């Protein structure tokens, strides 16, 4: 069974620095980090101390609310530091890699006849459980609750996103095993979405025991949230899961080899990346280790603009700095010039060739194939909501974005529920933030709204 869904709304931001399909380096991390801050509202309970020896798969911390949910070290080595922030909040657990590949061996059942309870136990123990996201809210799933269905996006449509066919080449069997395992966790279906442009060539179209869908359109068409909305939308009380392909493959490897192996291919992208390509590494790697791929500061408007290191894509990623670490869910690093400059009467210039705008008040539309060296300048000041009808063009959901945001700002729980808060997470509305002429921090508002819902509804 295959279904085709076409979305007319959306936007592919034409930024320079797409990763070409080649591996430029294998990064064996020296120090890497596991960050509780990668997970929404997680309060970690530390299980290790500085100096402890760990293997790949050794738990580092657990979820305080549900201590069976474990977060583990991706490599073997020693715990070198517990990084704390304000009020001693744990920001990261750093592990120094010892160069050996010592794994904890999990006693995995045979994937064919594994029981549901065993699968959940192993996923929790091995630290792969948190790689699943539960909707609504995009949180770590509750092991007690069975999802209505599971959604997997086989492509990423975000700006400069890695080509998953390349990044996961040779992993099709692991992905299939992962899917077979996940299938036992739900009575419902597993939905796999592919992009129409490559659905015939992608190795994933041969995957079994899934319902395949093809999507057509621009970003955010690759976001599972958008796909769920068009395949089988989330209603109040529903629970569904989403999981990315890298994590599905990791689950597959766990159940065939019995180890926590999250090594993956990460795309190094962006206008400040020299020869953008792929690196083979682990989540949590340090940005120091890709320094050689970062260009010299860019000269623009009389300033030298250094690179901003973003773990993730330029819409939803986080600015981790040159000494920061790759996030748990990120499979892409974006390097952008830091836009700290003052451009004289920029808003009044008829042409601004270095800037991209979806608005026809600029002339970007004359150059549909141009790729821009975009920087992080806000391009204006923050204002109240003034323009209307702008968000709608890049938000392919049957939800009124402006009304939802206003309900969140008013902290009106009932209204948020009515207007569709269960169906969105930050990434789904990221493009609204990009196009907003009033420079509203849309994702922050959505994030506040979700946290408020979690607190009020529990």
């Amino acid at each position: 069974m295959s279904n085709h869904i076409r979305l007319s709304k959306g936007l592919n931001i034409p930024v320079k620095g797409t990763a070409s399909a080649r591996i430029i380096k294998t990064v064996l991390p020296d120090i890497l980090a596991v960050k509780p801050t990668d997970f929404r509202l997680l309060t970690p309970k530390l299980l290790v101390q500085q100096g402890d020896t760990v293997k790949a798969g050794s738990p580092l911390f657990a979820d305080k609310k549900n201590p069976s949910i474990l977060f583990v070290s991706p490599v073997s080595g020693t715990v070198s530091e517990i990084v704390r922030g304000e009020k001693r909040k744990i920001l990261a657990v750093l592990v120094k890699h010892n160069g050996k590949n010592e794994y904890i061996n999990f006693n995995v059942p045979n994937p064919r006849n594994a029981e549901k309870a065993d699968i959940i136990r192993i996923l929790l123990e091995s630290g792969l459980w948190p790689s699943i996201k539960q909707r609504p809210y995009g949180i770590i799933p509750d092991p007690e609750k069975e999802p209505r269905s599971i959604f997997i996006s086989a492509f990423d449509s975000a700006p400069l996103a890695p080509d998953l066919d390349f990044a996961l080449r040779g992993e099709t069997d692991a992905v299939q095993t992962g899917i077979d395992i996940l299938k036992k966790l739900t009575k419902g279906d597993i939905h796999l979405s592919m992009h129409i442009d490559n659905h015939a060539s992608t190795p994933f179209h041969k995957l079994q025991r899934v319902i395949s869908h093809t999507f057509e359109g621009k970003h955010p068409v690759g976001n599972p949230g958008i796909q769920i909305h068009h395949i089988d939308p989330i209603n109040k009380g529903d629970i569904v899961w989403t999981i990315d392909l890298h994590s599905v493959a990791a689950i597959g490897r766990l159940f065939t080899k019995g180890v926590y192996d999250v090594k993956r291919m990460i795309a190094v992208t962006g206008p400040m990346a020299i020869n953008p390509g792929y690196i083979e590494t682990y989540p949590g790697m340090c940005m120091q280790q890709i320094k050689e791929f970062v260009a010299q500061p860019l000269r623009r408007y009389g300033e030298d603009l250094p690179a901003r290191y973003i773990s993730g894509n330029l819409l939803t990623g986080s600015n981790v700095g040159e000494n920061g670490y790759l996030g748990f869910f990120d499979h892409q690093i974006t390097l952008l010039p830091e836009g700290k400059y003052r451009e004289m009467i920029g808003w009044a210039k008829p042409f601004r060739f270095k800037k991209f705008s979806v608005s026809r008040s600029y002339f970007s539309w004359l150059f549909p194939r141009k790729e821009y060296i975009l920087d992080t300048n806000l391009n204006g000041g923050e204002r109240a909501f003034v323009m209307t009808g702008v968000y709608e063009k890049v938000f392919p959901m049957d939800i009124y974005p402006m009304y939802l945001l206003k309900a969140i700002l008013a902290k009106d729980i009932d209204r948020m529920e009515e207007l569709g808060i269960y169906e969105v997470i930050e990434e789904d509305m990221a493009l609204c933030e990009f196009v907003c002429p009033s420079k509203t921090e849309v994702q922050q508002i959505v994030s506040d709204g979700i946290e408020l819902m979690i607190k009020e509804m529990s």
Partner: protein
Amino acid sequence: MKVLKNLIVKVKPRFEKGGSLYFLHSTFDAFETFLFVPDHTANKGVHVRDAIDLKRSMSIVILALLPAMLFGMWNTGYQHNLSIGLTAPFWATFWFGFFKVLPLLVVSYVVGLGIEFISAQIRGHEVNEGFLVSGILIPLIMPIDVPLWILALAVAFAVIVGKEVFGGTGMNIWNPALLARAFVFFAYPSHISGDKVWIEGLSSGEGIVDGFSGATPLAAAAEGSATPSFLDMFFGTIPGSIGETSTLAILLGAAVLIYTGIASCKIIVSTFAGGFFLSLLLNAIAPGAADPSSFLNVPAWNHMVMGGFAFGAVFMATDPVTGCQTERGKWIYGFLIGVMAILIRVFNPGYPEGMMLAILLLNTFAPLIDHYIVQANIKKRLNRAKTNK
């Protein structure tokens, strides 16, 4: 450029918290960001932002207003010359009007921006760009003869009561420019109605050609006397508010607004559609030759080019803050403005124009229209949840 930049960087600390000129920080900020796009970078969330901002959006609207404004200046001179029976070369005519309109623009901007700067300062906000548009719109919808003090009062009323009491640009319920006009309309009706105020110098009555009437086409139609030809009204060589007379110039502006997407073409199209629809309906029931002076006889296409209909549809109804915010709502909103404007025009015995009141009325009801559109979406979601269970 570099010198200016260095100067700004140098004096900036004085305007920051703790500096000696902190009380002027909003004002400083307004000038700084006018000259230079600030060096703010995206901190949270999306790391790259679109090049569009409110300054750009607003300057496009001003650009779109220019044809109407320039034509209005020329027409001011032209109408004046007609009234005194003079023919003058093009530039002389234009400059005459230019120097008549300029004081209105200056007063409008000085009073309006003054209040905006003060209120931004009190609130500690940045100065919003909204008034840059209102400041030019207000003079364009006034008669040329409006006394400057009345204009000043009207602008102050519009900015304070129309906008700032609600929290500034983006929060207001009614279009500030129209509120200024409504203020004059209700407080000083003799200065915005009748046959004299639309032409410079006609009120004082010196050297006027015998029998010259300064009546606007709408007033003529209301009385049942002959109106100028369609083409005259389309090109705009008729008496009226400064910016509203030339439908051609307004359509040029509309092209800019629709093309750049700054104004909603749905509102513009549906406003014209609504107005045209009702006038056709009225034409159908018009007494025709039985009562040639009836307002019902005015052909539908003439309604589109008379008075402030086109100007209102293109520049006033499309205000994103006070109009409908849902895309479906915009169709309804525009259509009802068109219908109401013609309804008020034709059936209101006191005053022959209805666009201003129609837009203000629909401004009031826009949230209600949106409410029903959004409510439909909510119902759909609820039903989906129920049928799934």
